[in-house]
């Protein structure tokens, strides 16, 4: 009997087609609770696609067909009964390009909560403040919460997007190359934040940066051509890769 843990994923025989194109082929992995899992691999290997199956963002793409099952806790998120809106509330997502809404900083963080029907101003204010503090952004923006989020720098915008996700108090945060559009200093801040956040959240991060995966993740999955070639503890995968393809990739021989 399999043990179900809230905040952990168990993926069984996951196959995904875009039209006739096979994007993910028979994925079987368990993602651990309150750990950082990095997904690495060359472009087009299916790692972002895989990430997006976890909160069913692939539903938005026409002709996308998913087989197999993804257990989140004890719930199969691709079953008929699963409520995708509630699922996405519990599984936050941060995108590659910082994409704050064209609203004030405050409204950006409060938006998700408002959509849940929370109207009490005091609750909203407290939640917004907590989320901004947790995303290590509060000190920088506390005097200009009413200003447009678009006036922030790229790194600040990305931390705002993380704050926006945290505000929903999810169990999991999915990150799709969150630092690829940022400069090294902003990247360092986000990485620091991720290490801080993993105490409270399960984090799954797609990255092109091998050093980043090594620095921040506990587990790493190496994707190639829609398949998982190797999955294991980051330290082991980087120091003693079992598969020669993994070794080729992490040593920079291709990809």
């Amino acid at each position, binding site marked *: 009997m399999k043990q179900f843990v809230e905040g952990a994923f168990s993926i069984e025989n996951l196959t995904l087609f875009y039209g006739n194109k096979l994007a993910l082929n028979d994925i079987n992995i368990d993602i651990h609770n309150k750990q950082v899992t990095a997904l690495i691999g060359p472009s087009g290997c299916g790692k972002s696609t895989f990430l997006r199956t976890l909160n069913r963002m692939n539903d938005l793409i026409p002709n996308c067909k998913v087989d197999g099952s993804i257990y989140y806790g004890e719930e199969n998120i691709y079953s008929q009964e699963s409520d995708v809106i509630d699922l996405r509330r519990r599984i936050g997502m941060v995108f590659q390009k910082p994409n704050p809404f064209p609203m004030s900083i405050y409204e950006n963080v409060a938006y998700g909560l408002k959509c849940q029907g929370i109207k009490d101003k005091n609750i909203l204010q407290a939640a917004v403040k907590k989320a901004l503090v947790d995303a290590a952004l509060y000190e920088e923006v506390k005097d200009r919460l009413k200003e447009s989020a678009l006036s922030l720098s790229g790194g600040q915008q990305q931390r705002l997007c993380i704050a*926006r996700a945290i505000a929903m108090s999810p169990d999991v945060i999915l990150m799709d190359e969150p630092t690829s559009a940022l400069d090294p200093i902003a990247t360092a801040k986000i990485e620091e934040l991720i290490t801080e956040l993993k105490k409270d959240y399960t984090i799954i991060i797609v990255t092109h940066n091998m050093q980043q995966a090594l620095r921040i993740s506990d587990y790493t999955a190496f994707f190639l051509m829609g398949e998982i070639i190797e999955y294991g503890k980051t330290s082991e995968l980087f120091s003693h890769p079992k598969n020669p393809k993994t070794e080729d990739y992490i040593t920079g021989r291709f990809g």
Partner: protein
Amino acid sequence: MSKNKKRKASDFVLNSITYLSSTVSLITLLGILIFIFGQGFKLLNVDLLVENFESQGYVADLYDNVRLCNCEPTIEFDENTYYSPKWGVALSDTTDLLGRTVVKVEFVDKDSPLYKVRDKGIGNDPIELRDEYHIIRIAFDEYPTALSRYGSENMINYLEANDSLREIEFQTEGGGIRGSIITTLYLIVLTLAFALPIGIAAAIYLNEYAPANKVTKLMRSLIETLTGVPSIIYGLMGLAVFVPLTVKLTSATGGNLLSGAMTLAVILLPIIIRTTEESLKVIPDDYRQASLALGASKTQTTFQIVLPSAVPGIMTATLLAIGRIIGESAALVFAIGTAIKDEVSLTGKSTSLAVHIWAMMTDEPANIELSATIAIIIMFIVVILNILIKIISGRYMKRKMGVSS
């Protein structure tokens, strides 16, 4: 070397074409402005804007026991005003709002026999001959009739030569465009009230919800085709559908403001749908994904993220729509009618400024000057509304987005 020269030559030709074309279009537009202002500026005054179009005509004669006045004028007149001491009235030649020469009453003495005259029409109340009235003719018992077309000096001379008169015909000043201005404003508000919600909702459906299939494609190309249909066809449709509909549902008896606004709304729908859809299209998909990933429903995403971001585009659509409403005349000729009215009601006949111009130009003779004046007023209204909408949308963006645009 020669290659370089060739390139220079072709660059010169292409550049010249762009400069020339922009100069030509600029001159053309300036020419239109100069024409309109040159023709219409002299008739432009406040009276035109606030006066009734229809003038009230009176035919009256003297009461039996009145005596002649023989009084000196109590005020000074300029040299173009002629005074009759015998009758105590002063008349002058002037042009009315429509630009016609008329004889205008400048002054009536309180002791004048003409101060209060007997209405020969319906009603027995005495009429006061007020200044501002225009005298059409004065008929005497044994003397030729004094007509306004011979001028005020002639009329005063005739009055001085007679001790009594048989009848006097005069009218209030008419020709104002107040009714048409009000109708135009009504039309703008009503048409936008009909067209904006439907058009925006349709655009949202097409861009956010409609599946990418043949039916949607067909719908889009149909809407595009409708943009090119001549407005007079819509006018016919208004006459065939909306006029009977409003006649059935309201107290209207023929073409009316409501049927006109509905017809205009149909004309505007394709424009509003197209413009709104364009502005929805350019909203980055990132916003939608970010919102959905936060656990917002599709509807919440559409109405709280996508639609507010499209407000500037929707404002542009509104501006285009207002321009179209003010400028439309062919369709309205059928859907409202061409009756110029001072009393504007939703279910009554009345007409917009553009149709007012049409009516003035089909008059005999065509009144180009007044038409140009109305054109100035139309342009003025458009400019004012443009500025207003810019301010409103700027305020909105600042409040909602925290961005000053």
